[in-house]
């Protein structure tokens, strides 16, 4: 009988189950095996420097089939691009962050990360409950009961102290537990694709805040770049369907000529953007993690880093709880998790949603002032503080973010 059951087979579910396998509790993992689809070869994940240390410690980084691309510089611009006006080109991406010696983040194709996680979890102390989905979540005698259905329609049940729900933005577990979610209206959609740039990206990540939404380019190998272009719903669908040449032109126009002409290199995916916020991502015997607990605007590529933080913080809490002789579902696990995740999740939700709203939805005057603020920021000490936060781990101190496992409990299993 497991103490903890992790639900979800995506990037977050696999990573969380693997992380918690290093706790002294018995861990089971419920997932449906899904073949890695084409979409995952186009979508990418940005992992902060702290997240990299965590994935190295978990043995995942070493299993990545291709080395992740480091981000050395983060370049930010606001307002329309200034194509052709050479005099102003230098200022096109006015705000520039560069961090010490260490890259601030890394870009990994989702498919590469998924297969590394899948291989690593096979070697971990996790009981796999494959090809099952959760039909119901109930509580009896301070323990959680999960009713499971397998692919052949067979039913099954598992009882545990703590369920960790990594079942995504439409989390079944969240709904079963009656946890309220606040979702912003769906007004924007992101167009996601791989493009190649005419000029070398020099390992810089780019963000341009436009009236219609931010356009972001993350560096990848072979001078490829991962495009996340946020647009009003209808416009996004139009750009997804339009002629390739027209897309290249529109994309280059929106981004500016910092990197020369941009050329589409993959299918175009659309991704509805609907940031969500949950005041309390816990209920009796249940903890939500990753997108089940918080969907943030993808503009800064921080979504997966929050999920890494959820897992790293939860591992530390569970090790302390075990050392106290308490069960994994103890009330203090829920309150500690809630308290320790509130700051980072809240800050990240506010920052990403706020930045987008500031530049995309406010009147031009307000955006101008904000743009001025960004220029000031460029010259202020706040800048180094922001770079520190961008490289991760600052708002979520956890052993794994420092590149180590919690000590003294590992060998107890």
């Amino acid at each position, binding site marked *: 009988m497991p103490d903890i059951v992790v639900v979800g087979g995506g990037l977050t579910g696999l990573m969380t189950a693997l992380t918690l396998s290093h706790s002294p509790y018995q861990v089971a993992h419920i997932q449906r095996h899904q073949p890695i689809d084409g979409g995952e070869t186009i979508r990418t994940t940005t992992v902060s420097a702290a997240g990299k240390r965590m994935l190295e410690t978990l043995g995942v980084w070493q299993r990545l089939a291709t080395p992740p691309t480091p981000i050395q510089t983060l370049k930010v611009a606001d307002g329309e691009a200034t194509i052709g006006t050479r005099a102003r080109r230098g200022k096109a991406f006015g705000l520039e962050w560069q961090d010490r010696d260490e890259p601030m983040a890394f870009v990994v194709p989702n498919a590469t990360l998924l297969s590394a996680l899948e291989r690593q979890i096979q070697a971990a102390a996790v009981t796999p409950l494959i090809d099952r989905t959760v039909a119901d979540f109930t509580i009896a005698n*301070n323990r959680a009961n999960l009713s499971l259905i397998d692919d052949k329609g067979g039913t099954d049940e598992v009882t545990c102290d703590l369920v960790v729900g990594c079942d995504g933005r439409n989390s079944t577990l969240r709904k079963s537990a009656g946890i309220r979610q606040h979702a912003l209206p769906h007004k924007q959609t992101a167009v996601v694709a791989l493009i190649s740039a005419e000029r070398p990206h020099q390992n810089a990540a780019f963000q341009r805040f436009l009236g219609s939404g931010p356009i972001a380019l993350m560096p990848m190998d072979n001078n490829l770049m991962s495009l996340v272009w946020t647009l009003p719903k209808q416009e996004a669908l139009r750009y997804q369907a339009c002629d390739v040449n027209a897309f290249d032109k529109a994309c280059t126009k929106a981004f500016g000529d910092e990197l020369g002409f941009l050329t589409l290199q993959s299918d175009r995916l659309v991704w509805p953007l609907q940031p969500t916020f949950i005041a309390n991502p816990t209920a009796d015997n249940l903890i939500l993690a990753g997108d089940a607990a918080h969907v943030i605007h993808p503009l800064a590529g921080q979504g997966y880093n929050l999920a890494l933080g959820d897992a790293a913080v939860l591992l530390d809490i569970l090790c302390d709880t075990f050392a106290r002789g308490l069960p994994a579902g103890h009330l*203090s696990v829920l309150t*500690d998790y809630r308290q320790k995740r509130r700051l980072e999740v809240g800050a990240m939700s506010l920052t990403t949603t706020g930045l987008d709203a500031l530049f995309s939805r406010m009147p031009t005057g307000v955006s101008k002032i904000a743009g001025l603020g960004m220029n000031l920021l460029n010259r202020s000490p706040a800048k180094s503080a922001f770079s520190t936060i961008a490289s991760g781990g600052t708002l979520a101190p956890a052993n794994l973010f420092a590149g180590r496992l919690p000590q*003294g409990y590992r060998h107890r299993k």
Partner: protein
Amino acid sequence: MPRGKSMKTTADQNEIANFAAMSEKWWDERGPMAPLHRFAPVRIDYILQSMRRRNQKNPPDEMAVGQAPLAGLRVLDIGCGGGILAEPMARLGADVTAIDATAEAIEAAKAHLAVGQLVVDYRCCTAEELAVESDRDKDKFDLIYASEVIEHVTDRQLFAEAIAAMLAPNGTVVITTINRTLPALAFAKFALEYVVRLVPAGTHDPKKFVKPAELRAEFGSVGIVLDDLTGFVPTLAGSFRQSGNLSINYGASGGWR
């Protein structure tokens, strides 16, 4: 040991009835005992710290595979209630004896053992009764703790004597209780009992609250030095943390002089 009418006792009969009414709710973490469940982590931390300070607990980095940190240690929980602290101690490997003067609480505690597949020697008796029974060297305890109990005791001197009679030569004593100050009164009496109604009205009698100096003097007179004090204060998250502020709830620990 017969319980004659003349037997001196430290347990107050009215208060025993009060807890008995609630014994079924002991293990509901959101029920009437929620404050004790919320308090458990910080209390366990303090108990383990006190043992570590006195070189009793097995340090985690030196433990053998499968060895629990309290393995081989005899622990006495006085006023165990439904076993909220006794169960974690058993899970950490200790050989736990837990006593409570309320039969219903002991029954609730025994019934709950099966849930965690744990072993605890629960007995319905007072500290003095157990002290008389176990007046032999082999029955001494390596750790004796009384958490949120001493403020319900009528004769604290007798209570300290009973503990002294059962404490092993190298043993540790840990007491946690409510201070007799205005903030403590406001918190324990009015906030807990009347405002948020976390515990039933009438649970606490402020006259029996104990100041740290009084507690140290009473234990000092039986040869036990309580040489460490820590405060427990509520946090905004609804749990408790250790603090230098002793004015509400505090813990005291020590051993033979």
